[in-house]
């Protein structure tokens, strides 16, 4: 599903004439197989979030290639990467990233609108998904009217609505209590089991990491262990 070859990335800090180069990722080579749940663990500042942002296309790598589902995404233009994200990748963020002025229903409906789906089909899909994640009674609630766990369920439903083959999750339980954390991890495992969706989970929590089939450990921008697919 994901192949990364000799990926390096650095940030340039400071003013134009006094730029300081800060290497974040160094020569990363790793793979994620289809239908796997892979956890990427590492301490704060190890480069795991940068790795996720590079795979998502939010930033461009300094060196190396990224392939998703057979497509060399690191070479795609911004517009084409956006289309690719919409069709193939779902996102779950630590801070949920829901649009506050939209209801739970509208937030989940957003990817379908961007794809240009018909209103009737949208309605069917959104209602079905809301039921599935246990938010059937919260259709017209705004994010501010929902608990953290409920907001993350909305976020999961939004990630699932276009039936992606890959879901990238950045600290998906980072803002949740332990009880809700367990519920969310159970949903992830269930989706993987039932729908065969590949999950790449970025976390610093060992307990969350153990949910996955495999763990990739990153330290100081390098893969320490678990880079190869099973």
């Amino acid at each position, binding site marked *: 599903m994901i192949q990364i070859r000799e990926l390096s990335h650095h940030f340039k800090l400071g003013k134009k004439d006094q730029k300081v180069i800060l290497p974040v990722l160094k020569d990363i080579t790793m793979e994620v197989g289809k239908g796997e749940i892979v956890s990427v663990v590492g301490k704060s500042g190890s480069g795991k979030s940068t790795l996720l942002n590079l795979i*998502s296309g*939010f930033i461009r790598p300094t060196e190396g290639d990224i392939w998703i589902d057979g497509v060399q995404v690191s070479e795609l233009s911004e517009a084409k990467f*956006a289309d*690719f994200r*919409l069709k193939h990748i779902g*996102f779950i963020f630590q801070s949920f*990233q829901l*649009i506050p002025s939209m209801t739970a229903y509208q937030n989940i409906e957003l990817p379908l609108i*961007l794809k*240009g789906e018909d209103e009737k089909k949208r309605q069917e899909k959104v209602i079905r998904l809301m039921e599935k994640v246990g938010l059937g009674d919260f259709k017209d609630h705004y994010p501010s009217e929902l608990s953290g766990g409920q907001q993350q369920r909305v976020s999961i439903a939004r990630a699932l609505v276009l039936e992606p083959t890959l879901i990238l999750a950045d600290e998906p339980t980072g803002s949740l209590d332990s009880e809700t954390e367990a519920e969310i991890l159970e949903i992830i495992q269930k989706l993987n089991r039932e729908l065969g969706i590949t999950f790449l989970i970025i976390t610093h929590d060992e307990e969350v990491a153990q949910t996955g089939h495999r763990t990739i450990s990153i330290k100081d921008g390098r893969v320490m262990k678990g880079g190869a697919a099973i």
Partner: protein
Amino acid sequence: MKLKDKYRFIRQNIKKNKARTFMTILATAMGCAFLIVLASIGYGLQQSVVKETLEDQVVTEIQVHGKEVENGFEAMTVADIEKLEKVDHVKAVTRKIQLGQLPTYTIDGYKAETMAVSTHFPSEIASGLKLAEGRLPENPNEVVVGYHFSNTLYMETDEDIYDAETGEVKEEFQFKGEVKDQTITMTVQQDEEGKVTKEIPLKIVGVLEEPGREWMLNQDVYISQEVFHQIEAFTGTAGGEIVVDPENKVTGHLETFDQVNVYAESLESVQGIVDTLDEENYATYSIVSEMKQINTLFTIAKAGLILVGTIALIIASIGIYNTMTMAVTERAPDIGIMKAIGANPKTIKQIFLLESSYIGVIGAIIGTIVAYATSVVVNIGLPLILETAFDEEMPEGLQFSAIPWSLVLIAVTICLVITILSGMRPAKRATQIDVLKAMRREI
């Protein structure tokens, strides 16, 4: 993303900032209304001038004042008339010769002094001349008279026939009867003192139709060529002029025409005939040529007014730019989320451009309605104000402001172009928003 959904997005966004959007729409509407009202003055005055000019004249008429030669102008001759009649699309060529003196006419104790004209009746009829009553002359001593000829007749008496106040002939001295079928005596004189005179009995067989405009008078007597020649023979001068200097008098028949008019088959063929006559060095005047000049002048004036009006819209566009820039800044986190989940930059740009054009369209619609209302008020109110302020009556049918569809179309197009242009930069900025910074609320 479907257009319907984009509009739903825009409506949601506008709802969030109703007051700010309303003020921006208001500024756009005012700019659009200002543009339309300003240019409508040009359109209105043009319409009034054109209407006034066309009402005074026959649109297919081309006046020919002579032929340009090396040393000046030559009067129109029979040869010229024959040449003009052969020009394509010419319906008729009328020609008139005025008698060189003002004869007197008497009828049953009433007298008149008015112009005698020799004309070619077949061409007059072909040009559209109509009689109010009677028929055309069939023999030399028969005449037709202008519609107002009877008004010039007054009773021959020693009393003061004029009204001291109005200066007109008192009613009791005016001619009351019918002039048709009456025999009048035309008196012409040979010398200035009127020592030698000649009386010619003429029978009025027809009266011409009333002129098109209320203020136009036709009091002329239309005599035959034979009578005209009789007078020329009596005075011994060309054109029947009174002999002032017997040594230098011009004898014989007058071979030229005082007034020659060419009538075109249709309005469309007028310009072609004028061009042909101009090539032949004839001095012409036609209402179409005048219209061309009037229209050119007004087109320049209207373009200037539209340009001034556009400045108001450009000022309004600063408001749109500001509104859209603020909208992009406020919505940066939402844009970031949309981009993260897969919104194409083109879609983001289209949403913001649609929002600015939405403001433009609503502004243009309100502006057009306001402009129409203002136009009505101006057309009713301004003449009243001017009449009160200057104590002068405005011409009937004067229109200060007119808004044709073409003006609305021009204004709406300018309004839309300006609003879209002012939304371009903010829309582009929206596409350049950094996803990570936006999601971290750093913008």
